């Protein structure tokens, strides 16, 4: 228990910077600004860690913990790399609104995991710092995550609450009407209000009134709000707010594209630069970046896979420790071989996460469990899948359970196996339906239920081709 408490003391201070080694400080001296170093060259970035950083010791619990923390989702980096252009676009837009005291709306879109919300946090901080430096009135900042709203119109209530913190007014009208009245007349309040509505598509209703009213608030003559909507769909403004175009108040769209291979690699290296040791082989990081960029471009995926790869190395070390203990027991029983123990231990050194660790982590994440499950199904369930595959070849899309049972009995007869009864067959189909391998419809009568396939024929063929029994059936 004290060990756990001691380990968690560091957790309470996540922002404390790790101590840098003297050699790294010396290497950083020729470059006057770190930003320039980052922009300067990938060669310099790649060469530096190999030359400067020593190998880490995965057996050290402290180093292992800090390496995992550097790659965890909740560890926000000090600066968001690869999104400078998007941040500058949003920041310039907000600066213009604050400077000229006029309302505006912005829509930010992109796939999940592309850094939208994180960039918005940075933009908020930069805007407040800039307003302080320029001597302008500080804007109020209101962040709303639309998934937490019980009703879609609650966003206006939150807006009222955000404003009432400074005004202290209380009226009994609807929140939307209060806002519309407030923005229709001149008021003494000079502050702008920055509203960041995350997960904006949760406000979509059938009549689209809430979303429309929210963006229309920026068109009132004395409106003082800067609205930033964040969602995933690129065409949300076009699909759900077509009237805004004719009213000349369509929001500006900023697109966060999915991360490319180079961007993912740069972000991973940026996170690992905080760590004073070299954890990953360069080829392993490159493999992870290429795979994730080809699949989704999701940075959360990349960070989780790197964490899994470290766990692969950790498991290998644990397994090696078990084998080493066994070997030491054998050595102690026969004293003559005692001299070979240091050589044995030397061969088992583990220093970095290599390409095979990363390949296993990628396989664990992206691999479908369907083939493994089919191979471990009981024999008659495999026959059921095989007969259903044969039955659905050709033009047929679905069948009744009774017809499938006839096909199943046919396969059993051709292989000289006694078939199960109709009740067992029905139970087996229900088990396969529960796992998502076939789809079973609803009917009062068991034999009249409709069956349709849910997985690919190639998966069944691939899973069952190794079994000699099925080579004639497939």
């Amino acid at each position: 228990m004290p060990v756990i408490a001691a380990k968690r003391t560091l957790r309470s201070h996540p922002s404390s910077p790790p101590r840098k080694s003297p050699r790294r400080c010396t290497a950083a001296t020729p470059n006057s600004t770190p930003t320039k170093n980052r922009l300067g060259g990938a060669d310099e970035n790649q060469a530096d860690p190999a030359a400067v950083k020593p190998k880490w010791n995965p057996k050290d619990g402290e180093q292992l913990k800090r390496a995992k923390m550097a790659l965890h989702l909740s560890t926000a980096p000090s600066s968001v790399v690869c999104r400078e252009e998007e941040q500058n676009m949003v920041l310039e837009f907000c600066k213009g609104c604050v400077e000229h005291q006029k309302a505006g709306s912005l829509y930010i879109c992109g796939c999940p995991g592309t850094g939208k919300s994180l960039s918005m946090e940075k933009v908020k901080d930069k805007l407040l710092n800039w307003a302080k430096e320029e001597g302008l009135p500080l804007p109020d900042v209101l962040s709303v995550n639309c998934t937490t709203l019980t009703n879609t119109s609650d966003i206006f209530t939150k807006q009222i609450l955000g404003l009432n913190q400074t005004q202290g007014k209380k009226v009994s009208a609807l929140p939307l009407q209060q806002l519309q009245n407030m923005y229709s007349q001149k008021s003494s309040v000079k502050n702008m209000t920055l509203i960041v509505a995350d997960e904006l598509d949760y406000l979509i209703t059938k009549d689209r009134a809430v979303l429309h009213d929210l963006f229309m608030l920026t068109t009132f003559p004395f409106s003082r709000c800067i609205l930033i909507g964040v969602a995933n769909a690129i065409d949300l403004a076009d699909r759900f707010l077509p009237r805004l175009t004719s009213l000349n108040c369509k929001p500006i769209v900023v697109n966060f594209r999915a991360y490319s291979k180079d961007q993912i690699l740069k972000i991973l290296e940026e996170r690992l630069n905080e760590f004073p040791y070299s954890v990953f082989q360069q080829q392993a990081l490159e493999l992870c970046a290429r795979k994730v960029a080809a699949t989704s471009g999701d940075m959360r995926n990349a960070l989780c896979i790197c964490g899994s790869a470290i766990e692969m190395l950790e498991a290998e070390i644990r397994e090696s420790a078990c084998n080493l203990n066994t070997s030491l027991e054998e050595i102690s029983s026969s004293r003559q071989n005692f001299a070979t123990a240091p050589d044995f231990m030397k061969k088992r050194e583990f220093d970095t996460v290599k390409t095979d660790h990363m390949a296993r982590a990628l396989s664990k994440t992206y691999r479908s469990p369907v083939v493994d499950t089919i191979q471990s199904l009981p024999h008659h369930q495999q026959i059921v899948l095989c007969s259903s595959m044969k039955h659905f070849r050709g033009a047929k899309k679905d069948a009744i359970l009774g017809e499938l049972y006839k096909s199943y009995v046919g396969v059993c007869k051709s292989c000289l196996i006694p078939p199960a009864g109709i009740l067992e067959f029905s139970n087996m189909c229900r088990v396969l339906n529960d796992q998502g391998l076939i789809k079973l419809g609803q009917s009062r009568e068991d034999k009249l239920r409709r069956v349709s396939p849910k997985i690919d024929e190639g998966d069944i063929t691939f899973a069952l081709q190794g079994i000699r029994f099925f080579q004639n059936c497939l």
Partner: protein
Amino acid sequence: MEQENHKIKAVSLLRSRICDPKFIFISESPESNYSKLKFMISSSVTEACNNSILLLGPRGSGKNAVLELVIQDLLQEYPDSVSVIRLNGLLHSDDISAFKEIARQLCMEHQLLFSKAASFDDNSQFMVAILKECGLAHKTVIFVLDEFHLFAQGKQRLLYSLLDAMQSITSQAVVLGISCRLDADQLLEKRVRSRFSHRKLLFLPPSIEDSQKLLMHILTLPIDSSFPHAYAVEFNRKVQNIIEDRRFKETLNKYLNVDSSVKHLLRFLFCAVSHMDLQTGFLSRENFEIAFTSIQRQPKLECLRNCSILELQILVCMKRLEVKEQSLCNFNSVMKEYISTLTSERYARHVCLRAFEHLIHRELICFTDNRGQSLSVEFRPVKLLISSAELHQGLRANTSCPPKLLKLMDREG
């Protein structure tokens, strides 16, 4: 009397083992799912990081049992650092009741007063606040979402809130989803799927060799002072002989070829052990044969065994009509076939109609549509629900079936 006591005690021991997941699923091998899951959750607790894991496998493969064992071990190792919140998709599949249940369990866990009148907003903000406080206190909250695929319906607010809270640096939580659907992570919305860490633990049924090892593990008695030494040695020798018997292996393979999950095997063992002969005090192969026969039921055959002769004749006539490519028929066409087939000892029409209605009640035949409720029974189309093979077996099993009917069926078959 002493002899009777240890025989009864042996049966009790075997049955309690079959019902004890700790005896079945705990394995110190690093490759077992128990060890993998325990390592994942332990490292989340000790290293104070968030994690989300998905346990996938067919029903009866031990997902919940292994998880409960791991949670018990963790509560013993870290009694002040772990709290568990349990949700079930069948009970809390809408977001409002799920958040209310989370708030109730969190209040019970931390000795707070739970308010039933709290709204959805209050409950969700309360959960986020408690997670923050637990993070500051270095306490890990484990969320167990049973029937995970049922939480993936609708807008998935609960999953989004849980996984989004785990992205923040202050909370310490582990979200465990348990599902029998292999594509449970494909059902997630894209924002939730992005936040889920795609750690999957696959629970597959054991192989034939593993099943036999499990049999030996469960059915052998310990050779210590709790049982007479000679009795225990003889018992284990007999169990070994039964398991190595070729006919027993055939029976077991026949049983496991349909469903090889652990729960299915345990039901078989429980049935066999319950029929152990208390006179001799030993298991025999007949116990397993009786268990196999009693589990492998054919309810339609049992239904046919109790039919009257007239009902069997009506079924044979319907089968003959089916063979003549008439898949749909009604009472009138069956009567026509009945009159033309059975030239002697025919019953009156109203008696045949009553037998026909009995068959409908037993669900050996059924109406093909529900639209003609107002029509008389005689004119509604019906469909036969048993196959030729089942009818064949039923006729043979019926002791009062006349031989002429069997010949008639053989000619058709």
